[in-house]
């Protein structure tokens, strides 16, 4: 069953004629995703290797029945495409773009939430459900395999590292979701944990967090009180000095809060198996299922 993106998801790419938009739309299609169209204003009638391009999201939805969108539009202009997708009825919006001013994200998220839509990201590698052959993102498809573990992460390549280990340990994935590295993002750990809790195909969860904010601590509270499935976690940033932005805009320890140690403690207290050595996450996840 998986969550968020499935076999029957109909996906459009906003920014499809840009270099990244084209590359990744085709890569998603190769993986098995139904890439039904793309949007670049002024280029309606063109195709990208057979994928039709539309001037507006509304036109794309009308023609293709798309319900999911992936956005590859530069940060300075990325708020409006999110608003446009909401207005056109898109259910799940995956915003890959990094570098969006947080106030823009906050406004777009407010609109998405008020309309009951799901924003994934921004600054996310995307979402993939291997068993549904549906990839809406930039992650390398080949490292994934179908299976019973849900993966939720704030990172990109760190997620690939973990997924690669899971697969090599024989542990497949139901859905892998990148929440995004920004301070304000759409889906939170709790939002996704709820979906995994209610997904019969997901038997365990791997949670990948990092310094900054309190999302992991809040997730710990939820796990303690409302989730029966086993959870393993890895938290990056034990060595991060306070006050420094460690790559991700959201990865910053400020005023003593948001430290890796605080998150590790909260999760461990909630019964989560927190892995200290990154190279052991795969083996630990396998043992959780046994």
């Amino acid at each position, binding site marked *: 069953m998986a969550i968020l993106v499935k076999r029957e998801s109909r996906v459009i790419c906003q920014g499809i004629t840009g270099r990244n938009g084209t590359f990744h739309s085709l890569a998603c299609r190769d993986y098995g995703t139904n890439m039904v169209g793309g949007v670049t204003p002024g280029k309606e009638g063109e195709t990208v290797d057979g994928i039709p391009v539309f001037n507006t999201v509304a036109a794309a939805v009308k023609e293709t029945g798309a319900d999911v969108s992936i956005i590859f539009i530069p*940060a*300075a202009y990325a708020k409006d495409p999110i608003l446009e997708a909401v207005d056109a009825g898109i259910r799940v919006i995956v915003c890959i773009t990094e*570098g*969006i*001013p*947080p*106030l823009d*994200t*906050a*406004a777009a*998220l*407010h*609109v998405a939430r008020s309309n009951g839509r799901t924003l994934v990201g921004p600054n996310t*590698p995307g979402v993939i459900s291997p068993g549904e052959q549906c990839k809406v993102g*930039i*992650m*390398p498809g080949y*490292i994934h395999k179908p299976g019973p573990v849900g993966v939720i*992460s*704030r*990172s*990109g*390549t*760190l997620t*690939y*590292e973990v997924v*690669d280990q899971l697969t090599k340990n024989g542990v497949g994935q139901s859905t892998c979701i990148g929440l995004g*590295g920004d*301070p*304000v993002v759409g889906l939170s750990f709790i939002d996704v944990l709820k979906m995994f809790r209610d997904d019969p195909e997901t038997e365990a969860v791997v949670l*990948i967090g*990092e*310094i900054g*904010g*309190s*999302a992991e601590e*809040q997730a710990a509270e939820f796990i303690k009180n409302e989730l029966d499935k086993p959870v393993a976690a*890895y938290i*990056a*940033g*034990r*060595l*991060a*000095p*306070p006050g*420094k*932005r*460690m*790559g*991700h*805009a*959201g*990865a910053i320890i400020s*005023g*003593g809060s948001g430290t*890796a140690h605080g998150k590790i403690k909260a999760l461990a207290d909630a019964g989560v198996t927190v892995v*200290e*050595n*990154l*190279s052991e996450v795969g083996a630990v996840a396998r043992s959780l299922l046994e």
Partner: protein
Amino acid sequence: MNLHEYQAKELLAARGVPVPRGAVCYDALEALIAARNLKTDRVVLKAQVHSGGRGKAGGVAVLAMDEDIRERAGEILGSRLVTNQTGPAGKPVSALLVEEVLPIDQELYLGVVLDRNTGKVTIMASPDGGMEIETLAREAPEKIFTVAVDPLMGLAPFQARDLSYRLSGDKVIAQQLAKIITALYDVYVGYDCTLAEINPLVVSRNRVLALDAKLNLDDNAEFRHPETERWRDRSQEDSMELAAHKDGLSYIRLDGNIGCIVNGAGLAMATLDLISLHGGAPANFLDVGGGASEQIVYDAMTILLDDKRVKAVFINIFGGILKCDVLARGVIGAIKKRGTELPVVVRIEGTNIEEGRRLFEVSGLSVEMIPSLNDAAKLVVQKARA
């Protein structure tokens, strides 16, 4: 980008926020003249550095007019200030803010920040100002009043008024507070701040003024505030961090001797943690990013090779968008150009891995290629010790 106190005060004063009379000075004589021009009993000399905790570090001095203002100003101006936030190297004092000392009847706290949990700009205020907000949040959270602003509506006058009357029942004070709250919110949103703080906001004989001001501007929004570039003070930043930033590299200096190159911020942080777990000490955090070109990888490797503290280099790459052969070419190019005796341990996975490995193998360089992440980390720690 962080602003100095005097820059933040200029910005806020232009928006109608009262600040103490004062002048920013760059040498001791200038400071003395500025002090005399204030025609006041006492002046405060405030070191301008991008850091809190300046007072405890000796960067703030209150002097009567008959004390040696010039000497004290000269001492502070010529120094590097080491606070609990700067690290042991401290930061150079760029300038001195010379201000009148005012009688303080009450110290309040006022701050604006985008709440990560709610996605709303939130105003925090407290009748107990002057101390770190985090301390107050820990010890007396009930003394912090917050107002969450609707992203589409903006700050309504009644919200500013509500907050003001909670801080002070006195109409004269509350009216001034409401204006200041509104101005600070407007600055936060208008300049895309990550933080806007007035701490303490003081009541001095029925006047409300910002005794200190802190504004941090969001890097992601720099593109739409080009006029703020004139406030940038590079002397307050680590020079290697600045140089890396030009290439779009995220680089943070740490204290150890193992230079690191990784693609992806989360994986980069995790790599540091793994090195530390095995008893090593990373010299830096460095994320080349997903879209790195051969030139950017070359530049990143060059930064490490030029860092005299580095005794061994660890390259950990999981190639998604970044291809392993592109990485290999950049690294090999930099090593060949600089020539180095440093041990280099490479662990690569992902797109074009075979070609990447092949390039390293035929390069003729003594680079250790270790497929296992754990083994690679252990090896580089060993090499750094040798």
